[in-house]
């Protein structure tokens, strides 16, 4: 598998969530292609030195979210069918989570909704410039 | 199952072999130092006389020397002395052969076996120190582990007895041509030589099964074991005095001491306090069994 997964065991974020996030991101960016095979639960657990059930839970949740599919005996694969939909869904999830963190931070710093909206628009203008 | 004990016993026997070989070599050196003419007896050769079954014959050789032969068919002793003509007051031993009761050698080897027994009896206490997490985690009952270890130790004691006997024989042969006698009393004495060290081992084992160190048991054990028979023999004038009571108690206690049953002499081997070797065995065998049972029952209850 071309991507490199890493976990931060000391982070307050549960490891399985970290893995889910990283895999979704890889799918969204196309680093993981549709129908590409993921490492086995055992292999990934050994590579990362983490509990196999953590990996299993991650794979289960990814399957539930429609990002991967598992066939017994053959392993886990990124969903080949409806690839665009799953990619978009994955991308949406990752982006949403990042944006929520940003908004939460702004809120905790005491910005009002109006102030936050102004900031957001400024950032959007910079990153998604409208072609005239 | 008790592989650790097998290695330990093998090591002890290896060291014993080295000690016995060294003793043999020392004896050999001693023998070589006296090689010239061996023992010189300063005496008027005319005064040597035989009595009972011993016969003394004196002949004059062509060389002018006098040859005195001492023979005892019953005791299987045959010694040849020569009195050189220019040293009339001396006798030099030229050759000798002696008949020796087999049991005597076993008796000498018993000391070796007793020492080995007291070394091996540390088996349970040394496990208790910090190895129970291994010994009590075998997939067999603790009784089985205990009995395996004991079996190996008893085999080791018997081996040491054999080694000691061979060494004693070898050393004796350096000085005298030995012919082995098997007397009617020999069998019982040999069996005594086997059972007594095992009973001694069993006693020390039972005393130390619940402990974590063996030093105190060894020290007190040997001291008490050796002294008790002596104390029990103290003659008492007044049978009703407290002294008499103390001696009587000691005498009873001595019956529990395997060392008290040991007396070896080639003519009339005793069974120590018991009186005869057969009677001694009648006491020692049950004692050995009881002590071993006590050891096993204690050890299996030790907490890691």
């Amino acid at each position, binding site marked *: 598998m071309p991507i490199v997964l890493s*976990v931060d*065991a*000391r*982070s*307050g*974020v*549960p*490891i*399985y*969530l970290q893995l889910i996030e990283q895999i979704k991101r890889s799918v969204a960016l196309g680093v993981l292609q549709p129908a590409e095979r993921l490492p086995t*639960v*055992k292999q990934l*657990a*050994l590579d990362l*030195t*983490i*509990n*196999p*059930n*953590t990996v299993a*839970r991650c794979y289960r949740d990814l399957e539930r979210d429609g990002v991967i599919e598992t066939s017994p005996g053959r392993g886990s694969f990124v969903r080949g069918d409806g690839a665009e939909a799953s990619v978009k869904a994955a991308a949406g999830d990752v982006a949403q989570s990042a944006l929520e963190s940003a908004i*939460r*931070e702004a*809120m*905790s*710093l*005491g910005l009002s909704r109006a102030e936050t909206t102004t900031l957001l628009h400024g950032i959007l203008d910079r990153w998604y410039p409208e072609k005239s | *199952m008790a*592989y*650790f004990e097998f*290695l*330990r016993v093998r*090591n002890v026997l290896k060291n014993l072999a080295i000690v016995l070989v060294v003793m043999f070599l020392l004896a050999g050196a001693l023998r070589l130092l006296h090689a010239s003419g061996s023992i010189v007896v300063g005496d008027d050769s005319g005064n040597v006389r035989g009595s009972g079954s011993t016969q003394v014959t004196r002949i004059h050789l062509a060389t002018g020397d006098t040859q005195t032969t001492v023979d005892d068919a019953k005791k299987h002793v045959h010694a040849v002395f020569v009195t050189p003509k220019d040293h009339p007051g001396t006798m030099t031993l030229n050759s000798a052969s002696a008949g020796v009761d087999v049991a005597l050698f076993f008796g000498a080897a018993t000391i070796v076996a007793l020492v080995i027994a007291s070394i091996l009896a540390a088996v349970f206490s040394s496990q208790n120190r*910090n*190895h*129970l*997490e*291994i010994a*009590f*985690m*075998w*997939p*067999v*009952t*603790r009784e089985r582990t205990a009995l395996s270890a004991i079996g190996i130790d008893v085999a080791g004691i018997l081996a040491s007895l054999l080694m000691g006997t061979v060494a004693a024989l070898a050393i004796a042969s350096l000085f005298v041509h030995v012919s082995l006698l098997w007397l009617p009393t020999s069998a019982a004495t040999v069996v005594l030589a086997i059972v007594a060290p095992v009973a001694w081992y069993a006693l020390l084992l039972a005393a130390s099964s619940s402990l974590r160190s063996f030093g105190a048991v060894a020290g007190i054990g040997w001291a008490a074991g050796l002294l008790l028979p002596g104390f029990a023999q103290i003659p008492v004038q007044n049978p009703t005095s407290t002294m008499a009571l103390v001696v009587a108690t000691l005498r009873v206690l001595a019956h529990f001491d395997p060392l008290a049953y040991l007396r070896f002499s080639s003519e009339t081997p005793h069974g120590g306090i018991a009186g005869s070797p057969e009677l001694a065995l009648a006491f020692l065998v049950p004692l050995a069994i009881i002590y071993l049972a006590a050891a096993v029952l204690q050890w299996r209850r030790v*907490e*890691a």
Partner: protein
Amino acid sequence: MNAITIDHLRKTYGAFVALDDLTLAIPQGSVFGLLGPNGAGKTTTFKCMLGLVRPDGGTTRFADQTFSPAVLDRIAYVPERSVLYEGMTVAEHIEMQRRAYSKFDADRARELVKGFGIPDLRRKTGKLSKGMRTAVAVALAFSRSAEVLVLDEPTSGLDPVNQRTVLNLIVNEAASGNTVVFSSHQVGHVERAAERIAIMKDGRIALEGMVDDLKADRKIVEGIMPDDSATVAALNGNPHVRRVERNGRILRAFASGDAGAIAEALSAGGAAGVRIVDLDLEDIFFDAVAPASSTADLVEA
């Protein structure tokens, strides 16, 4: 099915209560981490489980069977301190295990021992360093194909590389469907390798649960109050708030579940800059065994 079931275990040494009504269930095929300060009773728990110490009350069952010597063939144990025979070589220890246990793999043991960096199998274990002795004990335990592994501080004395090797071995056993129970002072290791943990204190279980659930559940909700004495009424008596700390204007509510609602309550109660702080396992551990500022107190003059 549970690989190990401990019911109401009790052990006292004179007046000292080492284990106080301990109950634990360790599911088959899981990795279970046992944490706790020194003297909390972790080693005593293991020894009572394995029959090395007789408990004063309670029972232990392995795979729903009562304890018997035959069961020991399926259990491997690494004790807290070295129990190897000092006069025996590493090779002789391997031979000893081979004779005793039916599924012992001597080749694997030799491979593992070499992997830990022990150069010569003919070296007597008494001459090895503490870490090397731990490594030998671990190598022997992991060559048993045991269904259950009980490891008491299996990384103590080991260098970081060897520590990682032990963790990999634990993960490998779990991936093969075997059960591992281990205690460690390295909270980071437990965090990675264990899916369930129990934190012991004073002979009792202070906290137990799945690592991921505990992390998801336990958060600190922090807010800055308008002044030093302002309080948030909604926090009092809230079952999800374990305790509240004040440091000047900063208020920290230790939440068990429902962090979002508590955050809203704080904001509604006048706090600014409300944020939810994630806790790693070490934080959760400290909170369970040494709450408030007891360690900081020792440091400050």
